[in-house]
């Protein structure tokens, strides 16, 4: 029998999640309720969080914190988060965007999870609360590396620094169906320039591995370079480092590997897709 428990505080939800192996956090419902409808989830407890902190956005300053329950629709309604509108709009249609949460997106299996790709390129940290203690910040990359092996606890919020120049942040989702389609792949890049050269490059991919991943090879190649044709060509050469794309209904592994360098080159050159 499937039960539902509404939690008025994050601490209550974190405690229940830690103490009950059959407890499942219900975010916006776009992932968990599918399993309920298809009979894959019939036992245990669905945890709803009604704590307003879960859906709070603090985006007024240089450090941004987004509650894990914030929806893509809330991101799109925030002018302060305009640089994140492209990845938020890449998630589903309008109804899905009013439901899908930022925290839920962290756990979406490939080829879903495009918003997480953007957060990865922003060097985001997730605040994880295990048990009734206080939350601790963990690099998003660390959470993604272990998310399929162990329950991390309750992700209560996502934190990252606002890009000094929003124009340095780039995102594109490649899909066959427009405007809404599953990802063939997605790319996010934060490429701040210092004296005309890339400094602290962050590049991330979606649907090129079981979870969103950082493109370390590309980052190394771009670091300290001007974004000219030679640097872009070198980045394309390094584009596939660490990639383990799947073959699914959207594309084959071969195809994803073939087109990733092309789309990466276009993104870095500022060309239309």
């Amino acid at each position: 029998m499937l039960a539902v428990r509404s939690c008025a505080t994050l601490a209550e939800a974190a405690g229940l999640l830690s103490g009950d192996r059959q407890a499942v956090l219900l975010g916006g419902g776009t992932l968990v309720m599918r399993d309920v409808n298809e009979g894959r989830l019939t036992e245990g407890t669905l945890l709803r969080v009604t704590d307003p902190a879960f859906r709070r956005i603090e985006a007024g300053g240089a450090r941004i914190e987004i509650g894990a329950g914030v929806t893509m629709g809330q991101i799109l309604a925030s002018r302060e988060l305009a640089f994140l509108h492209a990845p938020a709009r890449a998630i589903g249609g309008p109804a899905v965007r009013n439901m899908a949460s930022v925290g839920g997106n962290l756990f979406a299996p490939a080829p879903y999870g495009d918003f997480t790709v953007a957060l990865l390129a922003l060097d985001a940290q997730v605040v994880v609360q295990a048990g009734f203690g206080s939350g601790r910040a963990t690099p998003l990359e660390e959470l993604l590396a272990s998310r399929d092996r162990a329950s991390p606890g309750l992700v209560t919020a996502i934190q990252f620094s606002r890009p000094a120049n929003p124009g340095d942040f780039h995102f594109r989702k490649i899909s066959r169906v427009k405007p809404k389609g599953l990802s063939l792949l997605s790319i996010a890049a934060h490429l701040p320039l210092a004296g005309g050269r890339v400094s602290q490059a962050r590049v991330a991919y979606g649907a090129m591995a079981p979870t969103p991943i950082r493109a370390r090879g590309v980052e190394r190649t771009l670091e300290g370079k001007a974004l000219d044709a030679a640097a872009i060509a070198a980045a394309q050469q390094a584009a596939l480092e660490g990639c383990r794309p799947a073959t699914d209904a959207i594309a084959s592994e071969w195809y994803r590997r073939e087109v990733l360098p092309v789309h990466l080159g276009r993104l870095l050159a500022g060309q239309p897709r």
Partner: protein
Amino acid sequence: MAKIPVQFRLNGTDRAAFVDAPETLLNTLRRSLGDFAPKYGCGQGACGVCTVLIDGEPHLSCLTLSIACEGRKVETASGMADGPELHPLQAQFMEHFAAQCGFCTPGMLTAARALLDNNPNPTRDEVIEAISGNICRCTGYEPIVAAILAAAGSPGLRRA
């Protein structure tokens, strides 16, 4: 398992039902409240035929818990007409032959209404974006887009 009481405002009328804890809003609407406009399609959030408005925003009722709607405002395609007078979207769907089998139509109407309530004069691209979560297997979408554009700016559009 004991049933849980839930109350919300459905198409302008206060309604109540006793639901199972994990029951979806779609099931409550269809089985308990007799509103058959939202349909069960994929159950995955991919087809949009169960789209309803919750507090004015489109949501997928097949992925929404009924108990999460306590005290909220739910609107379906059933509540769009004003007595015998069709909502302009409904009238234009008929005018443009935008429904064939009709299965997607309530969800399309609801998604389109959410758009026109907030943006009475959308562009064609904005219309396409608004219905991008709704699948139609009969019409090829063009009559639907034409109907929504024709209804846009109509003096009969109203916000509930």
